[in-house]
C-alpha cells in the first residue's frame, strides 16, 4: 500500500461542541467540512481528562496505569517504560516527523524536549507569543491589563501583534510548503493551545455569539447524588483575576449566571477561532497539491465542562470532560478525488459564512478510545499497526493497548 502523509491536528480542551457533532450553537464550518469528507467517531473518549496523561497515553497507545503518568511530573521513558510513540514509529519507518505547538505536554512530561529526538526529525516549534499567555494581557473595564479568564483581544495590541495559535499555523504552513515536493513522506503534528483557558482569542469571534443568545448548561447544578470525590473544584478557573473578583465559595460555587453565559460565549468563540486555523491548514494542503496524498486526523486531548454539573473544567470522568472529537480524513477511502479540480477544502471564513452546513460522510457511533488512535493512524497511513500489548507490557517498547479501527472504514457498524 502507498504510504500517505499525515497531518495530525490536536486542539486543547476541545469537547464535541462542533457542528459535525450536532452542536447547534457553535459555528465550526471548516471542521464540519473536513468531517463531511471523513469518518467521524461520534463517541471517542480520552483515558484521563487532563493534558499530560491524556497526550502521553494517546501518543504511546498505553493507558495511564501503564504510562504511570497521572500528573505532569514524570517522563514515561524513565518512569515506567521506554514506550515507542506514534511519531517515533513513523520516524522509524522513514517518515520526516515534525511537531508544532502543544502536541506533547511541555516540561518534564516530555523530557523538556517534546520527546525530541525520539519522536521528531527536527525540534518542536513553540510559538514565542505563548510566553504572554497567562500574563496580564486582557484589557479590563478599568482600562488596565489583567490576567483574566475572559480575554478577547485586539490582536494588533498584543505583544508581537500575534497570538500563539496564529503563530503555530504560520509555522505549520511553512513546514508543509517545505515538504510538499519531497519524496519522503511526512508526519506533521499541529497542537493548538485553544480553546484552553484563558480565552485569549481575537475579539472578532465573540460577535458570532451574541450574549443574549447564549444559554446556560442544561444541568448547571452539582447533582445531589454525585459523590464528593467525583467533583472537581476547577481551581485554575478560580485563579484568573476576573473570576477571583467574583468571590465564589469553595468548592461548589456557583458562578453567577451572567458570568456563566460569558464563559460559554468565550469558549464557543475560541472554538470558532480554532476552526478558522484548521481551515487555513486544510486549504494549504489543497494549494500544495497534498490533499490526495495526506490523511488528516483531528482530535483533542479531552473535553471540558461548560457548566454541566456545576463544573468549569476537565479533571473528571464525566462524558463532557472525557469525550473528544475524532475525525479521520483518508484520501481514496473517506473521499474520492475531485477530477473537476476544485479544492477539497476551500477555506470558509466563519466571520462571513458562519451558516454553512455539511453532512458527515460516515459516522461511527460505537465507543472508541484515544489509545486506538496510534494503531489506526499507522494502519490507515500504510504502515503496520503495532501489535496488541500483553497484559503486562512495561518491557514492551512497541505495542498498543488500543484497537486498530481500520475495519470500521470498510464495514458497516454493528450493534
Amino acid at each position, binding site marked *: 500500500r502507498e504510504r500517505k502523509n499525515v497531518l495530525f491536528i490536536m486542539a486543547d480542551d476541545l469537547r464535541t461542541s462542533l457542528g459535525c457533532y450536532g452542536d447547534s450553537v457553535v459555528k465550526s464550518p471548516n471542521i464540519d467540512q473536513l468531517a463531511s469528507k471523513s469518518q467521524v467517531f461520534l463517541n471517542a*473518549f480520552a483515558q484521563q481528562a487532563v493534558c499530560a496523561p491524556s497526550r502521553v497515553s494517546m501518543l504511546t497507545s498505553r493507558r495511564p496505569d501503564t504510562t504511570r503518568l497521572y500528573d505532569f511530573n514524570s517522563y514515561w521513558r524513565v518512569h515506567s517504560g521506554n514506550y515507542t510513540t506514534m511519531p517515533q514509529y513513523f520516524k522509524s519507518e522513514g517518515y520526516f516527523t515534525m511537531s508544532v505547538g502543544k502536541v506533547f505536554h511541555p516540561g518534564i512530561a516530555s523530557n523538556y524536549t517534546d520527546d525530541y529526538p525520539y519522536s521528531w526529525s527536527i525540534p518542536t516549534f513553540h510559538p514565542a507569543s505563548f510566553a504572554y499567555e497567562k500574563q496580564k494581557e486582557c484589557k479590563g473595564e478599568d482600562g488596565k491589563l489583567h490576567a483574566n479568564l475572559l480575554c478577547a483581544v485586539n490582536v494588533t495590541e498584543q505583544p508581537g501583534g500575534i497570538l500563539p495559535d496564529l503563530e503555530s499555523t504560520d509555522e505549520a504552513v511553512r513546514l508543509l510548503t517545505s515538504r510538499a515536493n519531497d519524496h519522503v513522506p511526512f508526519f506533521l503534528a499541529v497542537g493548538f493551545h485553544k480553546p484552553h483557558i484563558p480565552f485569549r482569542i481575537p475579539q472578532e469571534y465573540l460577535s458570532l455569539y451574541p450574549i443574549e443568545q447564549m444559554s446556560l448548561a442544561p444541568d448547571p447544578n452539582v447533582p445531589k447524588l454525585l459523590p464528593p470525590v467525583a467533583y*472537581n473544584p476547577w481551581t485554575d478557573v478560580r485563579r484568573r483575576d476576573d473570576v477571583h473578583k467574583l468571590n465564589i465559595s469553595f468548592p461548589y460555587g456557583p458562578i453567577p449566571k451572567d458570568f456563566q453565559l460569558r464563559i460559554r460565549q468565550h469558549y464557543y468563540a475560541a472554538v470558532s477561532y480554532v476552526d478558522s486555523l484548521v481551515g487555513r491548514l486544510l486549504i494549504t494542503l489543497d494549494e500544495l497539491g497534498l490533499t490526495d496524498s495526506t490523511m488528516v486526523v483531528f482530535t483533542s486531548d479531552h473535553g471540558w465542562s461548560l457548566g454541566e454539573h456545576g463544573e468549569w473544567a476537565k479533571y473528571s*470522568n464525566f462524558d463532557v470532560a472525557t469525550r473528544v472529537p475524532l475525525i479521520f480524513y483518508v484520501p481514496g477511502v473517506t473521499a474520492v478525488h475531485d477530477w473537476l479540480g476544485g479544492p477539497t477544502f476551500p477555506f470558509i471564513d466563519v466571520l462571513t459564512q458562519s451558516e454553512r452546513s455539511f453532512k458527515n460522510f460516515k459516522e461511527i457511533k460505537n*465507543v472508541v478510545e484515544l489509545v486506538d488512535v496510534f494503531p489506526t493512524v499507522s494502519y490507515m497511513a500504510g504502515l503496520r499497526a503495532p501489535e496488541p500489548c500483553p497484559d503486562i507490557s512495561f518491557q514492551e517498547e512497541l505495542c498498543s493497548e488500543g484497537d486498530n479501527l481500520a475495519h470500521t472504514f470498510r464495514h458497516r457498524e454493528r450493534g
Partner: protein
Amino acid sequence: ENEEAIAFSQYPRPADTPQVNSDLPNLIDIKVMGYSLRCWDYRYTLWLGFDPKTYQVNVTDVHAGELYLLAGDPGQDKNIYSDSYHSVMMTKLASLP
C-alpha cells in the same frame, strides 16, 4: 469486532472530598482513583483506594460509585449506583483490561 465496545477512563483524587489539589493531585498525594467504563447505554465508575508508591489499586476499598443510564439521563445527573449493582459490575470490571 463482535465484542461490546467499551471505553475506559480514570481520574485520580487526593481525598474523598474536594480540596485545593483535587483537580490535579501530584502522584504522591493520590489516594483514590476513579475508574470508569462506558458503553452505549451506561457509564459506571468506581472510586477505589490507590497506593501511589506501588501504583496498586485496592478493589475492596470502594470509596464511592456512580452509575448513569444514558437513555434517560444523557447528562449523567442521576446517579443510581447502589450495592445491588456493585457485584455484577465489579465482575465486569475485573474481566476487562
